[in-house]
């Protein structure tokens, strides 16, 4: 072994004293971080191999090729489903609302309306009404029994008249609210297209809408929450004109046996057909008492 010279020993001590190993804190922390990272690199492969065995299936599922393939399948499937599969509940509602809005708008802007109404009576017969309306706001309602007109109601901007053709009398009414004759009450909500459109827009709750395959028609089911017994209305609309063809009014209940038992009213509409303004002039149709 080589003996160190005393001079070298002295220089070594001097160097140790002068160049002390106290790095600035920032450099020291950086060095420590590097050492920690270096150690971690050696320790990690062992840890990874253990977890790899446990999560092998997950690694397989998360392989890039598998994910890429599944993503393409998902996109293609999504597009195909959107093109072919049945509509969602939201789409059904949007379709229902938009059709309903279109129908009420078309009804509101119509030029004339003819409506025949049948109301079943307790004796198994039908009470028939004929409602005729022309723009701007003239309405005539005939109440028929056994094919004869019993009473007629005329409504115009200025006056309202009710004629009793059996008693040969006619009287004037101040406002629509003053029409108290129970014979006219069933048809009061269908006296004009605007009335019908307003009810469709503001009052009746849409329950269902089904496009009917034949003749481009659609069927609405509404609920009238203000009516006694919360009646149901079934409306068939023409999808070419967005105007109603017929309305059936039912009274629902737990004891529904057949349609006849619950049918309250049936209406059939004809729209925009020329109607003579002369029929809107109030006059009594004289009938013989025998008739």
């Amino acid at each position: 072994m080589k003996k160190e010279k005393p001079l070298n020993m002295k220089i070594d001590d001097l160097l140790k004293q002068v160049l002390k190993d106290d790095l600035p804190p920032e450099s020291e922390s950086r060095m420590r971080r590097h050492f920690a990272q270096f150690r971690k690199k050696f320790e990690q492969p062992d840890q990874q191999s253990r977890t790899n065995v446990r999560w092998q299936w997950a690694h397989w599922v998360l392989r890039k090729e598998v994910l890429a393939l599944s993503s393409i399948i998902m996109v293609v499937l999504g597009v195909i489903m959107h093109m072919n599969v049945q509509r969602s509940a939201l789409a059904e509602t949007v379709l229902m609302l938009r059709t309903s809005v279109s129908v009420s708008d078309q009804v509101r802007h119509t030029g004339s309306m003819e409506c025949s109404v049948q109301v079943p009576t307790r004796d198994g017969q039908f009470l028939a009404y004929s409602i005729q309306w022309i723009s701007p706001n003239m309405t005539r309602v005939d109440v028929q029994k056994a094919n004869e007109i019993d009473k007629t109601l005329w409504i115009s901007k200025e006056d309202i008249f009710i004629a009793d053709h059996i008693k040969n009398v006619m009287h004037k009414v101040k406002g629509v609210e003053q029409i108290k004759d129970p014979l006219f009450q069933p048809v009061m909500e269908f006296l004009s297209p605007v009335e019908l459109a307003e009810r469709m827009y503001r009052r009746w709750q849409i329950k269902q809408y089904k496009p009917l395959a034949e003749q481009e028609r659609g069927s609405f089911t509404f609920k009238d929450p203000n009516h006694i017994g919360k009646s149901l209305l079934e409306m068939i609309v023409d999808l070419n004109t967005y105007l109603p063809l017929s309305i059936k009014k039912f009274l629902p209940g737990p004891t529904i046996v057949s349609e006849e038992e619950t049918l309250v009213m049936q209406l059939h509409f004809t729209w925009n057909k020329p109607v003579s303004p002369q029929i809107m002039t109030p006059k009594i149709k004289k009938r013989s008492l025998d008739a």
Partner: protein
Amino acid sequence: MTSQINKKRIFLVLARILIVAILVPAAIFSGKFGNLMGGYGLVFVLVGGMAMALLSFSGPEIAAAFKHAAGVPGTRKEMRKSALFWEAAARNAWMLGILGSIINLVIALSDSVGGVSGIASRMANSFVTTIYGMILGVICFVPAWKLIEELHNQPLEEDPDTLEKPVQRETATLRFENIIGYIVFIAITSWTIIRPSLSMSSPQFQPWEWIIYWPALLVVLGGTIAIVLFVGNASTGRPFTLSFALTGLIGSLMGFIQVLLAFSSKNIENMASAVTFIISSCFIALLGIMLVGAPLEDRIVKSERTNKHSTLSRVIWYIFPLVTLIFLVMTFVLVITPIKKG
């Protein structure tokens, strides 16, 4: 001197709180903003905002952000984190407002009380949640701007913390608070969707039915996975934000083109189907950005692996909800506008 400045700051904060405390009840009791009052929408934005804050930040970080907003001084690093928190809170409030509007719009469609008029009115009211989100967003942006301004004014000296202690970089992994945040967010969103169907006597459809509109879900998720794989570097969150927004936008545009085609042929059925696709695509994409993209990027920025949020992500966070809002308004107009026929 410092204590005097602190006292002044505290007085300023108290004065601001007092002004807000006077203005808000005055606005409520004036009755002029009756249509804009929807209690649950506000609850959704507030609770959802808190949940989303927990997705990205820890409890102590949130507490520190409130302190710094109130004027309590902190180190440069802490202030930077607090500014990040307030910026994220503002962004979350804005996105939550839009998400709430989508949910409320669909809920409005599912209830037919009051006829078409009632549905249209409820649909219009669903946009109130967006206003709440926007207001809350602006409120959260104020401390963010203030803290950023303070950071700019501070000299660029190194923190004593970093000099004395070894630097410990935070990991961007999930913490306990983050998991709690996810649970609360999913709970409040689910409750918002389910709640109205419990009170409705006969809903048109269950509101959660539309969320699982499989075509939109498949297109958005499939597209997102494909783009993330292509872009790579998924752990930073940026590819998720970008891909969710892109696929959501593609889905919406597909639906929009279908709407235009349906308009030209006056086919309401196709139009309704397209509207559903648009709403669902926007909803799923927005939810993806909120639950995956944004929190991941927040955690990455917080852990100082990058200096700031990417500009593209920022643009997406503000523009995509705006596009969604435009599509929602379009849906509203489409539903209440009649088709004119001869």
